[in-house]
């Protein structure tokens, strides 16, 4: 949450549903995006991210619900009447226009004088470090340059909200990381709300103030990256965000759960006794030691098992520890002096009582 509650949200989505024939692309979503916020929408392919973005842009109209931009209902307002601009996934630059004409297009549509439009477009191109390229056609630019033109073309109109649909999807890793930093600082300097669609969770984590996780048209969780990572709302979010162990269990009482192999663990949860749940445990949060070496204070959050496999990663070692029939991934320290284990070793594993997290199915 970047802003206090009483300023108007940049985008307010209430009860929005979008159907395409029988397909429910977006299913009854409520969402508020604050002014000046970097907001990421994350989810697997086909979960409705693009559709949500397109509804904000006005390229698609909701089947149900209300959509407000800075307090004004925009439900079926055409895209040209909305104070938002989009950076399309494939950039969608005008192939028949020069880079400068592409960037000044929006200004010209608002009947800005040609000369002024050109000079403002040039400024924006300078800002994204493409000042030299203004006379070229989009086809004469590299992917990363096209991406920046698309960005400049949208930003030159000073939108109140900028929508970005996987803008970095087509770039290679190095360029991608560079652009992430650039985008983030651009957003901070301009103070514009960015709604950023991605299916790369690390990207979402690194860049956003808040993340919305979607699946099958439903909004599963909205919150700051740390909250999504450490306190996932359900099994799907826990599984989707980062690497984690999900141990099936049943709630015994408010402080304990019982794993499917009968082991009893201390893990507080708000769920009723008897509920089937999963405990999410990040591999890096687990400590590993010789059998019986569990520190006393971690006794209630520990298990014993056998090392099944070892993968040496250089900076770390990944163990798979077999506990009954449960596989537990553990990321061990590889620094000199720490005890290393090999397959077949009997080990104890334990974790801090704050690092596990119980989610309902």
């Amino acid at each position, binding site marked *: 949450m970047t802003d206090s509650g009483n300023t108007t949200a940049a985008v307010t989505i209430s009860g929005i549903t979008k159907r395409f024939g029988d397909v429910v692309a977006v299913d009854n979503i409520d969402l508020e995006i604050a002014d000046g916020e970097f907001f990421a929408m994350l989810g697997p392919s086909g979960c409705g991210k693009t559709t949500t973005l397109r509804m904000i842009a006005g*390229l698609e109209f909701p089947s149900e619900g209300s959509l407000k931009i800075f307090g004004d209902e925009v439900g079926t307002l*055409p895209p040209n009447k909305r104070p938002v601009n*989009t950076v399309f996934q494939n950039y969608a630059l*005008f*192939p028949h226009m020069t880079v400068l004409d592409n960037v000044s297009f929006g200004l010209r*549509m608002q009947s800005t004088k040609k000369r002024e439009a050109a000079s403002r477009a040039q400024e924006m191109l300078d800002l994204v470090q493409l000042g030299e390229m203004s006379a070229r056609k989009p086809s004469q630019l590299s992917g990363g340059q096209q991406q920046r033109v698309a960005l400049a*073309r949208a930003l030159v109109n000073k939108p109140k909200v900028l929508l970005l649909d996987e803008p970095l999807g087509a770039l290679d890793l190095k360029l991608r990381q560079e652009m992430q930093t650039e985008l983030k600082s651009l957003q901070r300097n301009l103070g514009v709300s960015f709604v950023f669609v991605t299916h790369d969770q690390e990207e979402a984590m690194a860049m956003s103030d808040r993340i919305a996780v979607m699946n099958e048209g439903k909004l599963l969780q909205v919150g700051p990256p740390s909250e999504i990572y450490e306190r996932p709302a359900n099994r799907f979010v826990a599984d989707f965000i980062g690497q984690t162990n999900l141990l099936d269990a049943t709630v015994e009482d408010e402080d304990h759960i019982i794993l499917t192999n009968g082991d009893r663990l201390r893990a507080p949860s708000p769920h009723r006794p008897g509920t089937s749940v999963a405990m999410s445990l990040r591999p890096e949060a687990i400590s590993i030691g010789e059998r019986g070496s569990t520190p006393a204070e971690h006794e209630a959050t520990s298990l014993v098992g056998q090392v099944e496999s070892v993968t040496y990663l250089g900076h770390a070692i990944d163990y798979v520890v077999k506990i009954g029939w449960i596989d537990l991934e553990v990321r061990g320290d590889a620094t000199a002096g720490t005890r290393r284990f090999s397959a077949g070793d009997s080990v104890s594993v334990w974790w801090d009582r704050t690092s596990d997290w119980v989610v309902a199915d």
Partner: protein
Amino acid sequence: MTTAQTTELSPKNLSDANERNKRRQGFLMAFPAYAYLLIFFAFPLGIVVVYSFATRNRFGGTDLSDWNFDSYIRLNDEVLRNILFRSFTLALLTTVICLLVAYPFSYFLATRTPTIRNVLLVFVMIPFWSNFLVRNYAWRVLLGSDGPVSRLTELLGLGETRILFTPTAIVLGLVYGFLPFMILPLYASLERLDWSVLEAARDLGATGFQTLRKVTIPLSMPGVIAGSILVFIPSFGAFVTPEILGGGREVLLGSFIVSQFLEARNWPVGAATSTVLMAVMLASALLYFRKGGRTL
């Protein structure tokens, strides 16, 4: 690239050899087509050009001697200039009308689902299933003074229509006959359009009309030009439609050429006219390829 030191097997040489091989194969496969074009197209064309420089003899034959430019000089005649001007105007009018009718239709077509597209495309092609001559006679019946069109206007109290044997009838017939040649290339270029570009225009504040003017039309220009050439050229030299629907009252280029060959028996002048016509077509085709037609 460290292994590719030997000149023989360097990747570049290999790919050159591949290229050569491919080209040779391509030529062999295209040979029948080349031969066909040469025998049935280039050769007759050459004869026409040769005849245009020959001389008509007293008996209506052509002497293949005495080469001169007389036939071309005769083309500068007042009568022929009028014919050229009339044919040009009618062809231009036909092209413009076809464009205005075909563009919205092609746009509609390109935005339908594949099934509907195919059905509509078949409808566009249906007229080709019957003979062009027959279809022109059908129009003659439709437009005749006791035909359905005239009957209808009479019934509505507008009096009898006398369209048949007027330039209007000719243009109507030409538009009818050549409309598919406009629709198909327009459809082809609109269908390949990247729709997200149009959405981008709307997103950047353009109205629907502005998007059409600034983005859609410029991007479908290859189709517009190809369609216009495909309609303009046959309209310019059209013979059947002006004869049947115009009743031959208005001499147009096509009729003129035919009459030079068959009635006036002046083959050199007919050939010269045809050559000029072909030159115009060639010029417009070249213009098209210059104007980004490569992308079609």
